[in-house]
């Protein structure tokens, strides 16, 4: 690895970080909100099935919905209270069933992360037991995609895993929640890493931290001393370092083939917050029900990291952070590069909400779109080696069958960010991706129908 820190080879960019807005050295615990709207489809895969009824009293940490399939996750209530209703909630394009909980007046606020927690005793635990506990606790990837963790730890037969990478890159501008977690609670992250290593039978783990977080790097390095097989890896600050495939390349130099999962190169990647949640699930039997969320942007009065029970509305968080201090042009769920703008501030947070940004008008750049000047910057910038301008052209003309490369796009947004003509490149590619997936689903449905008819006749 070079002296400038490990990184991926192809493409990438370095947008202004704005991480100074939200201080990662400390965080606050959110007082109980008035109500929690807990979406049952907040992970990838099948929605969870509610196991509580209206007017049921629930305890903090109680299971309220169980996984609706193998690729699904359990959901627990973060606070003691009463189930008020079970309506639908709209999180982006997902119309999810939900459980609405009114916290009791005497409900304790969500438990914070312990300081100086004991190390895990892994001697008596088998890999299977660890995975079962992770599954019961409803753990999902907390980096943003919310992929159920137990699925990631159960490789298909014939695959041997040899490297675990814990993702502390946090390459998205503004966000400091992972930084905050590593600085304040390194033991949870490291012990969780050990448990993950054991569960997948892996001997070698890297914790990738970008070099714009020197304190985190120092704290984690100090805490990791004496832990065999765990290396804290300094990465060069470069977007999209926190993307699974890019981080694998940075850490071990392997490239995941197009259309394949990290399994294919023997690697598992987990977020630092997920590792900490693994520790809590094993040490305290505590399910995943709250997380650190960065509330930032120039339009919010007191940007800060907040420990938030899932299901809290954006509005509650905004009020807790002192409300708006000026005009807000856009509210973004997640980071500014890959996050999704929302027009509904009653939208609840989920297990995957890493940040909520209230961007002032001067932070939101939306210039006119100019014609492509064929400069090729998007091609050079694409970390996946795609040709964004061509994919965009095909998508605009509805020639999706020819744009199958789009399926490899990780939607990092580098192309649209660096385009001198402000072309909406990633937007069209994302559309093409969606359309291709829809076409595939339709073809499958049609085939099924034909098979059913053939079986009948």
């Amino acid at each position: 690895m070079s002296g400038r820190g490990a990184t991926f080879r192809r493409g990438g960019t370095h947008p202004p970080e704005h991480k100074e807005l939200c201080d990662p050295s400390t965080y606050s615990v959110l007082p109980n909100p008035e109500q929690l709207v807990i979406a049952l489809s907040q992970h990838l895969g099948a929605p969870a099935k509610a196991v509580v009824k209206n007017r049921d009293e629930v305890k903090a940490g109680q299971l309220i919905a169980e996984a609706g399939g193998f690729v699904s996750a359990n959901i627990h209530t973060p606070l003691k209270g009463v189930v008020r209703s079970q309506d639908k909630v709209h999180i982006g394009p997902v119309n999810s069933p939900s459980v609405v909980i009114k916290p009791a007046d005497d409900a304790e606020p969500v438990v914070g992360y312990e300081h100086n927690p004991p190390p895990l005793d892994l001697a008596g635990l088998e890999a299977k037991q660890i995975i079962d506990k992770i599954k019961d606790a409803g753990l999902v990837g907390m980096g943003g995609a919310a992929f159920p963790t137990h699925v990631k730890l159960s490789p298909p037969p014939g695959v041997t895993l040899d490297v675990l990478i814990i993702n502390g890159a946090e390459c998205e501008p503004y966000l400091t929640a992972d930084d905050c977690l590593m600085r304040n609670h390194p033991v949870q992250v490291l012990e969780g890493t050990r448990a993950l290593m054991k569960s997948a039978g892996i001997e070698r783990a890297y914790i990738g931290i970008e070099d714009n977080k020197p304190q985190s790097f120092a704290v984690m390095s100090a805490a990791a001393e004496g832990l065999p097989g765990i290396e804290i890896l300094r990465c060069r600050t470069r977007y999209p370092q926190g993307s699974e495939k890019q981080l694998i390349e940075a850490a071990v130099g392997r490239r995941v083939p197009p259309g394949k999962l990290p399994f294919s190169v023997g690697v598992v990647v987990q977020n630092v917050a997920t590792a900490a949640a693994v520790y809590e699930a094993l040490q305290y039997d505590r399910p995943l029900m709250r997380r650190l969320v960065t509330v930032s942007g120039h339009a919010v009065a007191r940007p800060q990291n907040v420990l938030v029970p899932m299901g809290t509305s954006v509005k509650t968080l905004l009020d807790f952070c002192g409300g708006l201090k000026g005009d807000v042009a856009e509210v973004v769920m997640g980071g500014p590069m890959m996050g999704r703008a929302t027009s509904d501030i009653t939208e609840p947070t989920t297990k995957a909400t890493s940040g909520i940004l209230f961007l002032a008008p001067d932070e939101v750049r939306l210039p006119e779109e100019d014609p492509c000047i064929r400069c090729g910057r998007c091609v050079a910038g694409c970390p996946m080696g795609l040709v964004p301008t061509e994919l965009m052209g095909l998508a605009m003309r509805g020639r999706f069958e020819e744009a199958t490369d789009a399926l490899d796009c990780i939607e990092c947004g580098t192309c649209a960010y660096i385009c001198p003509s402000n072309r909406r490149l990633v937007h069209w590619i994302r559309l093409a991706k969606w359309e291709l997936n829809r076409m595939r689903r339709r073809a499958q449905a049609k085939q099924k129908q034909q098979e059913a008819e053939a079986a009948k006749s």
Partner: protein
Amino acid sequence: MIEVLIPAGVMGGLGLLLSLALLLAAKKFYVYEDPRIGQVEELLPGANCGGCGKAGCKAFAEALVAGEDGTCPVCSQDAMAEIARLLGKQLADAEPVVAHVMCEGLQSSASFNGLYQGINDCRAAHLVGQVDRVCSYGCIGMGTCVEACAFDAIEIYNHVARIIPENCVACGKCVEACPRELIVMIPKGRQVFIPCKSLDSGKVVSKVCEIGCIGCQKCVKVCPSDAIWFNDNLAEINYEKCTQCYECVVACPRHLIKVRDLAEFMVTEEDLKQGFDTIAEALWTERAREKAEAEKQRQAELAAGGEDPETAAKRAKFQQGLDDARAKAAADPEYAKKLPKIEAGFLKKLEELGPPPGAAPAVDPELEAKRQKIQQALDDARAKAENDPEYAKRLPKIEAGFKAKLAALDPASKAAEHDPAEIAGSQTGEEAQ
């Protein structure tokens, strides 16, 4: 001369030789194509829309001639019949359909917030989730379906896509294009439809849209042919059962269920000013008139001394219940213990219905006591006047005073003035039974 003949002969010979070669090649490599393919293709519209599921009209013609089944959604019935005749087949009896957009949350009736700034395509907007329209199920209105339509049969009107049925050939391209699956095919002759796809609860829907389905299920209850089914907060019509009686159209409290007539199908500016759907409007007016007439008739019957049949039926039912209970109590001593409570219940219900017409009006016991007291005083005064001539002189004035008081107590009841004791007696007697 020879200089001319030689080239002419060479050229002519070459020409003959080559034409012979062409002739032989044509014979040798002749491929037989069924002439019917060309004939069928002639009859097809030639729009290559792909509505039949084939790559184009030529491919469809080949498939038809090869013996496959299929219909061209664009063709007229006549053309299809002609093709069937040509191929010696029976025409499949399919009801023609027309596309319909299942959202009518126009700008005037639905809530909008936010400012979408992404690319102008419904699919991209759908990926963001809630765009400017608050409802997550409604029409995004950026016209991806309009672009998909090769027949100019869709337009965006007031933020909502709508089909121009005259142009629609039911090729199904728009159905495929819509990311929210709002466009469906409805049999052409059908007039009633529920243009909403929201699966939200009524509470949420009523916040974001003035006409969206709130899941009250009134339509399900009034439908005489069980043609409306209800699932996940949304009512849907089963067109195989619908008899187009319009009961649901009248019953829908949101005025969501619409009637369309192909000519009058679209909501226009003028309609917006007047109300919503002209046909539905006419139906409501008609129903309102019928209702008013029924009410008038009822009032007239009441005035004529007859009783509202509904109340009468109720009274008869309660009286029957009361009599039954008494009969049962006479036979069953155990039941007799509970009788007073049951009797009280029935009597209370009867009392709530009011007095039966023709019977003496009910009398307030307090008023009655007062009346008796005044009557008593009046009688006393009359008796005294008989004995005391001095008093007799003042009697008319005193009598007038008492009578005025009586009249003040009950100006409506003349009967009570004449013989209050009898009425009071009958009243108490009835209660004692």
